[in-house]
């Protein structure tokens, strides 16, 4: 995996003016949760112009579905405007596009629960707040999600304690 691949993916999306919110493990990492994650999970705006910008970014990233990679299946508009989760592999690593998360929450609905975060000069992205990440993990209730909850909750407590 090339150096700085997580940042590279986020930078490319940002430079192409894709509207998205970073969620999942990397969002937790950026907010101080000491966990490891190997992919970038985002919820994108399904507005038509944004979907085009996202598709263009995916083409630059050589993105294909992780399932049956030998067939090199590429996502299209119908995938990006649906409701599902799109698990991709790109030349910079794994990228999961989530049309909605939790109980069908969209990009627009998640915006109030996100914050802008600077990652480097000229690179700022929106990240889902820890409180909402915890709420969503609690709702999901899978073993994997429940396993992460103690770390998320204790980090939030420590953050609030300052």
């Amino acid at each position: 995996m090339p150096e700085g691949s997580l940042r590279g993916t986020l930078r490319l999306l940002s430079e192409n003016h894709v509207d998205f919110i970073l969620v999942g493990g990397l969002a937790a990492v950026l907010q101080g949760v000491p966990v490891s994650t190997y992919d970038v999970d985002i919820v994108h705006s399904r507005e038509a112009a944004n979907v085009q910008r996202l598709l263009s970014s995916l083409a630059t990233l050589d993105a294909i579905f992780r399932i049956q990679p030998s067939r090199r299946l590429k996502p299209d508009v119908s995938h990006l405007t649906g409701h599902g989760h799109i698990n991709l592999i790109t030349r910079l690593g794994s990228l999961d596009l989530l049309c909605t998360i939790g109980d069908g929450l969209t990009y627009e609905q998640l915006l109030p629960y996100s914050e802008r975060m600077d990652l480097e000069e000229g690179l700022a992205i929106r990240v889902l707040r820890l409180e909402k990440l915890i709420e969503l993990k609690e709702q999901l209730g899978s073993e994997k999600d429940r396993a992460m909850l103690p770390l998320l909750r204790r980090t939030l407590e420590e953050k609030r304690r300052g």
Partner: protein
Amino acid sequence: MAVPASIPLTDYSPDGVDLTLIRWFLSLTPAQRLEFHERQMEDILAIRKLNARG
């Protein structure tokens, strides 16, 4: 310098989370967290790749 006996060497929450690790990670900026995480990830992947060779 020896650590005074009065200073606790660990701090775990009742559900077993290492709070010292959280506090250290919180002391970094988001950019530093990302940089650390990327470096760590690259190291792990390099070790995995090395050990995957026949």
